[in-house]
């Protein structure tokens, strides 16, 4: 059965508060989820909050977390967009390593499993790159903009319940990006690999992925297109 309750040591309890320094202006309360795998064993000291971050401009995808109930990138989410207290949690339904750092091992393996690289049998022209029309390039323009932050997959209920077998919106968007790349020659094999009740058809067009995507991409539409292509080759 799906897990509807957090494990005992992950249930949210009231924690520490740090009052604003005297004379501070523009005071906002931040409520940040903390998870210490060793809690209960060692003395509670004020250790540093752990989270991933790198580019601070929404392109590396490291700082994906659940802010004010929505998966997004912390670096491009403005505090002014949020009313009242700012609640910050790690990406939902992933194993938490510490504080706001989820374990994305399975997520990355799923990305690797769709072979996100150009597969061809025709050798590239010796004197130049493989050509593609402008229109064809534009088809992969948007799906290529995915930064693999995992906001979409971890917002998807289907992914929560069956992430061991369902590839999730991010990996499927990546698969789609290579399926529609006119230079790729493994389209059939790619569709074969996806045609599976769990890998692909766990998507029920819930659309949380499109809503969560901080890059305004639409993985749900890409998945629908994959389903249409698989139907097309049978009719």
């Amino acid at each position: 059965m799906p897990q509807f309750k957090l494990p005992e040591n992950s249930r949210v309890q009231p924690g520490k508060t740090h009052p604003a320094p005297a004379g501070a202006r523009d005071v906002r309360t931040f409520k940040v989820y903390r998870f210490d795998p060793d809690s209960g064993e060692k003395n509670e000291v004020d250790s540093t909050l752990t989270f991933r971050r790198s580019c601070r401009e929404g392109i590396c995808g490291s700082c994906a977390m659940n802010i004010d109930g929505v998966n997004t990138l912390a670096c491009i989410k403005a505090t002014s967009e949020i009313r009242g207290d700012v609640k910050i949690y790690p990406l939902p339904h992933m194993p938490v390593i510490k504080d706001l750092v989820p374990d994305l091992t399975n997520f990355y393996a799923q990305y690797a499993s769709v072979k996100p690289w150009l597969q061809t049998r025709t050798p590239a022209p010796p004197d130049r790159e493989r050509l593609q029309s402008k229109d064809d390039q534009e088809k992969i323009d948007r799906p290529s903009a995915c930064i693999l932050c995992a906001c979409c997959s971890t917002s998807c209920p289907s992914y929560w319940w069956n992430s061991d077998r369902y590839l999730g919106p991010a990996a499927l968007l990546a698969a789609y990006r290579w399926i529609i790349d006119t230079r790729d020659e493994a389209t059939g094999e790619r569709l074969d690999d996806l045609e599976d009740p769990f890998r692909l058809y766990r998507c029920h067009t819930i659309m949380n992925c499109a809503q969560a995507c901080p890059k305004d991409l639409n993985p749900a539409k890409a998945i629908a297109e994959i389903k249409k292509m698989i139907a097309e080759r049978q009719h």
Partner: protein
Amino acid sequence: MSLKSPLRRVTYLGSAKGGSGHWFAQRMSAVALVLLGLWLVAALATMGGASHANVVAWLSSPVAAAFAVLLVLVAAWHAVLGLQVVIEDYVGAKGQRLAVLIVVKFVFAVAAVIGVLAVLRIAFGVAA
């Protein structure tokens, strides 16, 4: 702790190379149900206050009986397809999932046959 690589865990037993038939059938049976449902509602609307004998006579006609049989079969089929999705979504344990699926399919098979026989009894004038 598993020593399998994450990729080995994801690739698992490979693609089932299936599921598209289920997906297509679910959509087609939904379309059929809309049409058959409209037929049923339209037919019942014209028979408000009709006597039992009149309704039996109506359902005995080949066209009405055929549509009624189709309605029973398609409704059961669509229900099985839909419940399969729900079960695959929410029943995680592998053995349990298969067991529940089998039970659901058996129950709906029995229900569909009962429904078809009920229509046929009227169509063939067995039930008065």
